[in-house]
């Protein structure tokens, strides 16, 4: 929803003559205002400086840093926020600032700099951009971007300028890998995303997550998987969006996020006096055939999932123990640990490796040291004075097996007739049934099978505009999907916005809608 601004602000934004205001804050020293340490029980003092909320190594909240105000040095600013088209997913915002370095303030030490920042002109510096207008004698701005520098700020001795480029904190997802397996059953998309956010060390104040509509029957994220791939797939399966907003807050919007107030009412009426250009896009966005592929996994009833192969016995030294890993073919949801008297999970120990000696099973105890998605580690303790051999080991449990592949194809015949086939393929492991694939396909076709549905507008900047806002332009309703803002004395304060045409639909709500009325069943 558009950021909250005063009526004087919106009046200024439509004025023929506007005084542009901006703010650029950079945390060159990357120091925080919560102390340098996270609160640790037994170490930190209550009332001390150590912080609670941002965990060590967590993906940061922009507000925790101390910033230098570099607004007076700004020569131009640009930033871009978008939602992933066409099927949703994870998107990151990007920004850049061109800064005057005539004074040498931003010259690094190794280039002869001697300012207070000469050792701090480095990559990965957090920065924030705000923009708005100067009226009633003061600068009135709204937040536009919060992120981190992605590369070494570029400067050269001749131009006396510094180019500072960065991306929002979503960029971190591309360089973070799961350090432990996560497995879940029957969870909504929002629950899974929240689990992932928390595993990144985020506190609840750093994100807002919709519950989601898609229930994922089974999911496994293996150790070492990149976060951005997981989150992108989850959001795509939902036909939703994961992004960071202008203030630095992470958000997950499910497919019904825009079906309720305030997203189903027009936030801004765009006048021709605000539009500099309107451009028809090419046919790249056109989709009239959707193909969905997904591997289907199902929970299986308890069954034997491991059987020690013949002649694969292993020994347990006398009055000692040995630890062994056992691998499974499929992810295990529940495992019954083996006992000497077990019926489905059991083991047999002998005095000889080929199983012909004396049965010494009673001398062995087994302890589960750790269960992982596709393996388990057991400790076998031998309490007798002679070596024992584990000659039989049978393990039983419930696994999630891939039982087949989902393939679903849907097309819009009239669009195919008009424009030939424009297929779009979705490979996503979190789409687990045909009805969900059908629903997703129909929504995509509804949005993108018509050439008239998309438009790119260049407008005099509306700083409070956000992605997802519904705007009215030339008597039609459009949803904002991408905003590229530029604040530059050569071009002015302008925005290129990508908008998708919408028909406002009111969906059926229990207790409010009437059977036989105009409200539709939500997709």
């Amino acid at each position, binding site marked *: 929803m558009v950021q909250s601004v005063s009526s004087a602000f919106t009046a200024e934004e439509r004025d023929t*003559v*506007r*005084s542009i205001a901006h703010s650029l804050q950079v945390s060159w020293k990357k120091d925080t205002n919560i102390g340098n340490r996270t609160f640790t029980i037994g170490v930190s003092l209550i009332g001390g400086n150590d912080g609670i909320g941002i965990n060590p190594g967590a993906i940061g909240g922009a507000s925790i840093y101390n910033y230098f105000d570099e607004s007076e040095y700004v020569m131009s600013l640009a930033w871009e926020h978008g939602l992933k088209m066409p099927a949703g997913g994870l998107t990151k915002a990007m920004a850049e600032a061109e800064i005057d370095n005539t004074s040498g303030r931003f010259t690094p030490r190794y280039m002869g700099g001697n300012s207070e920042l000469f050792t701090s002109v480095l990559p990965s510096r957090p920065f924030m951009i705000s923009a708005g207008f100067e009226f009633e004698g003061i600068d009135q701005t709204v937040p536009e971007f919060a992120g981190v520098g992605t590369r070494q700020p570029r400067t050269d001795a001749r131009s006396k300028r510094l180019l500072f480029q960065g991306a929002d904190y979503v960029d971190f997802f591309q360089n973070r890998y799961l350090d432990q397996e996560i497995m879940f059953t029957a969870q909504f998309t929002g629950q899974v995303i929240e689990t992932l956010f928390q595993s990144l060390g985020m506190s609840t104040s750093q994100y807002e997550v919709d519950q989601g509509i898609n229930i994922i029957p089974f999911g496994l994220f293996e150790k070492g998987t990149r976060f951005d791939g997981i989150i992108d797939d989850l959001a795509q399966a939902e036909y939703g969006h994961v992004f960071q907003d202008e203030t630095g807050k992470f958000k997950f919007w499910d497919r019904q996020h825009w079906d309720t107030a305030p997203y189903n009412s027009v936030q801004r009426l765009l006048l021709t*006096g605000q539009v*500099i250009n*309107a451009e028809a896009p090419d046919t790249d966005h056109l989709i009239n055939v959707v193909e969905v592929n997904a591997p289907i996994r199902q929970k299986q009833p308890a069954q034997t999932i491991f059987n020690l192969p013949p002649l694969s016995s292993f020994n347990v030294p006398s009055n000692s123990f040995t630890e062994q890993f056992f691998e499974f073919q499929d992810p295990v949801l529940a495992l019954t640990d083996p006992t000497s008297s077990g019926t489905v999970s059991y083991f047999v120990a002998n005095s000889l490796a080929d199983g012909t000696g004396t049965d010494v099973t009673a001398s062995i105890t087994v302890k589960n040291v750790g269960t992982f998605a596709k393996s388990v580690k057991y400790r076998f303790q031998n309490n007798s004075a002679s070596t024992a051999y584990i000659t039989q080991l049978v393990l039983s449990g419930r696994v999630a097996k891939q039982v087949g592949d989902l393939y679903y194809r849907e097309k819009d015949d009239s669009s195919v007739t008009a424009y030939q086939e424009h297929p779009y393929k979705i490979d996503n492991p979190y789409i687990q049934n045909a009805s969900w694939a059908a629903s997703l396909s129909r929504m995509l076709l509804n949005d993108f099978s018509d050439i008239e549905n998309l438009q790119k507008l260049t407008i*005099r900047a509306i700083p409070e505009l956000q992605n997802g806002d519904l705007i009215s332009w030339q008597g039609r309703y459009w949803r904002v999907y991408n905003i590229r803002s530029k604040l*530059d004395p050569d071009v*002015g304060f*302008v925005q290129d916005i990508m908008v998708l045409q919408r028909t406002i639909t009111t969906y059926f709500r229990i207790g409010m809608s009437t059977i036989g009325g105009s409200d539709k069943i939500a997709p």
Partner: protein
Amino acid sequence: MAYILDGTEIRAPHELSEKNDSQYAQNRTLDGQVNRDYFGDNKRVWRLQYKTTNATDYAVIRAIYNSYLSNAIAKSWSVTEPNYTISATTVHIDLIERGFNVKGEDYLSNFDLILTEA
């Protein structure tokens, strides 16, 4: 009743001009309206033209210019003429070219002193 640059009275110029330097971008929207976005404040630029100036007067101005270059600090500028006043303003200094049309002992010269509001 003086021209003061960096706290020093300099010789009055033979000609003086003042112009405004505003930073703006102009866009024309689909309804035909011409709109402007202004960035920052309006800045003034003064051009002081000197003709047949003796070496001593030039040296005073030159010394201030040298100080501006070596210290990289904008200088204070004010005018207190009866009908033209400039309250103390910080300016950048440009003293680009000096031409001689009367040589001899005095080496009278022509030059322009350009002062740009910081």
